[in-house]
């Protein structure tokens, strides 16, 4: 019942905005590269599709547009809008309190796969992944990994080297556990460490989880509980209540063990790549990850996925704790470094941003806080993390260079924006929906170059920082 209504609501929204939707900045239907080519082909016409979007928006909102129903050249019947609104209101009115809370906070599992929003990249591009698996097989990458992973003499360095350019999905889970430092490279100790750590996690759950409703901790748990349902709203997998409970435990236990930062919004996002990778390991490779019913997994598998996600998250966060402590000094530092770096490597772009009073913190705070996850489709994040995990300080220093490369990627469309508003709207909704491993490969290659040039030569940055 409620699902139907929500579908109605979604459908309604969609039809209302059918005129605008194709132009939404986050909704590029072609690849960004195509868009750039297309845009540069029309260099003489200042109006880009983004400008069009803005204009279309201000059009829709002339004086007196008190009722959205009168955005009239979009053919939508007022009656339909009213009846849908009425049914939404009616739903609130008639359902029991509990149900309504649930519906309000936990949207239905209904797949909205075809809907995407600016700043909310489309979650999965499965076909790209299976294509990649074939490529990996052909290129001998799998063979290389198998030999490194199964040899008694392998070193972390070897594993990092072959992981840097992307890890084949069949060995990703084990490789991530090793690269995270969660289990040792030493072949003899892996299984026993894994067993011990998984037990240890469940002991922590037993020790801490009961405290979540206590007065001193209920704020933490409440915040986690609010955030989980709206974490990856477009991915059906994360709307399963059993999955949400797993996330709640992981995050709550982590927060209890790290009182200096506690739970900070955004950390929830960081669990998802681990969760997805460890889930992929235990389900058939041809099954649809997005719709996989986690309650059908064995309890042992579920417990292992949860424990492994917890420990890998912990390892990741150990490296960037100052991102989440009071006043978030890690982020503020890296935002400042990003600014200095861009000023150094692309003064034209930097001055363009400065001239229009765009502050780096305004757009790159989220890039740092959520490690670019809000800007990229989930599987692109997974690919990005192959590199970050294989790179020393990958989520700390190297991420700064990744952000720089990511910003530079958009320099031309950004330079075409003529005011603060255009720049901010674009920076908040960069069109990465159709990105795949290929674009991530380019970003990390650029990041590597920047890192190579600047990370060991801090004076490069300081000299520019000290300029007036």
């Amino acid at each position: 019942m409620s699902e139907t209504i929500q579908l109605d609501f979604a459908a309604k929204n969609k039809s209302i905005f059918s005129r605008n939707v194709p132009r939404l900045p986050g909704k590029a239907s072609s690849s960004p590269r195509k868009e750039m080519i297309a845009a540069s082909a029309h260099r003489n016409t200042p109006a880009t599709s983004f400008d069009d979007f803005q204009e279309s928006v201000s059009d829709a909102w002339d004086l007196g547009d008190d009722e959205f129903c009168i955005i009239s050249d979009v053919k939508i019947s007022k009656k339909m809008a009213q009846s849908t609104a009425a049914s939404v209101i009616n739903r609130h009115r008639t359902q029991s309190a509990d149900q309504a809370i649930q519906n309000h906070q936990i949207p239905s599992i209904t797949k909205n796969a075809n809907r995407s929003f600016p700043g909310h990249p489309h979650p999965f591009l499965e076909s790209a992944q299976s294509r990649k698996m074939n490529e990996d097989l052909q290129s001998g990458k799998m063979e290389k990994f198998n030999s490194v992973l199964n040899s008694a003499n392998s070193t972390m360095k070897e594993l990092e080297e072959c992981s840097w350019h992307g890890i084949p999905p069949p060995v990703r889970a084990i490789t991530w556990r090793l690269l995270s430092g969660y289990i040792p490279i030493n072949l003899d100790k892996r299984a026993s460490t894994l067993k011990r750590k998984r037990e240890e996690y469940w002991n922590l759950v037993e020790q801490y989880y009961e405290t979540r409703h206590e007065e001193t901790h209920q704020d933490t748990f409440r915040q986690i509980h609010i955030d989980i349902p709206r974490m990856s709203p477009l991915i059906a997998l994360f709307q399963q209540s059993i999955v949400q409970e797993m996330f709640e435990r992981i995050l709550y236990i982590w927060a209890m063990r790290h009182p200096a930062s506690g739970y900070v919004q955004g950390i929830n996002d960081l669990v998802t790549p681990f969760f997805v990778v460890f889930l992929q390991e235990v389900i058939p490779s041809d099954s649809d990850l997005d719709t996989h019913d986690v309650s059908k997994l064995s309890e042992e598998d579920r417990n292992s996925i949860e424990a492994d996600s917890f420990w890998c998250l912990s390892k990741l966060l150990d490296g960037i704790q100052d991102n989440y402590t009071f006043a978030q000094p890690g982020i503020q530092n890296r935002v400042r470094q990003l600014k200095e770096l861009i000023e150094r490597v692309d003064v034209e772009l930097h001055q363009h941003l400065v001239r229009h009073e765009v502050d780096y913190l305004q757009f790159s705070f989220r890039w740092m806080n959520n490690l670019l996850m809000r800007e990229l489709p989930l599987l692109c994040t997974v690919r990005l993390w192959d590199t970050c995990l294989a790179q020393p300080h990958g989520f700390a220093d190297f991420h700064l260079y990744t952000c720089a490369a990511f910003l530079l990627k958009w320099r031309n469309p950004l330079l075409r924006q003529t005011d603060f508003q255009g720049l901010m709207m674009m920076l908040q909704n960069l069109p990465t929906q159709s990105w795949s491993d290929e674009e991530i490969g380019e970003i990390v290659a650029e990041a590597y170059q920047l890192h190579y040039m600047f990370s060991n030569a801090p004076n490069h940055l300081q000299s520019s920082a000290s300029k007036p």
Partner: protein
Amino acid sequence: MGTRDDEYDYLFKVVLIGDSGVGKSNLLSRFTRNEFNLESKSTIGVEFATRSIQVDGKTIKAQIWDTAGQERYRAITSAYYRGAVGALLVYDIAKHLTYENVERWLKELRDHADQNIVIMLVGNKSDLRHLRSVPTDEARAFAERHSLSFIETSALDCTNVETAFHNILTEIYRIVSQRPMHDSPDEDSPPGNSGPIQISPTEPNSGSKSNCCKA
């Protein structure tokens, strides 16, 4: 006919603040894009949007900063209060705790925002009638005591969203247009040193029915 971006008489910076999950982002998207999203993600740091409206034949451009509600972000988000001439302080009428925290948010504004900032208390999610835990009268009385405007809204069914933004922008306009004219339309430090501006509470009936998709 859209107003061109660079053509406006006044540019007002307004911040959206309040506890996590009260619907700040949906109020913003409803006002600027007429979108509502049951599944919207938590805001990280700040997000920006803009829309122009007309008051007395003048074009007023609202530059609205939506902020993250979680406490840890205060250090970052409070930097955005600077230069803001208006604040929508939002709570959820169905979650009493978010109303109790309004005092803390007022303190945030006192500490970080200009003393003359125009503040509107907004009780959002008014569509959740049977879940209401904050009586309208109580919130209105609170607003009067603190010289805040007051309105209840529903970003979901559109009730009063237009009115809320329209009222606060008009209020700011009235104050700003009374002082000596400045050349720069985006002068963003509010007027004079004559102490806090007294704002009369919103008329009771303006807080009720101007909804756009009334059932």
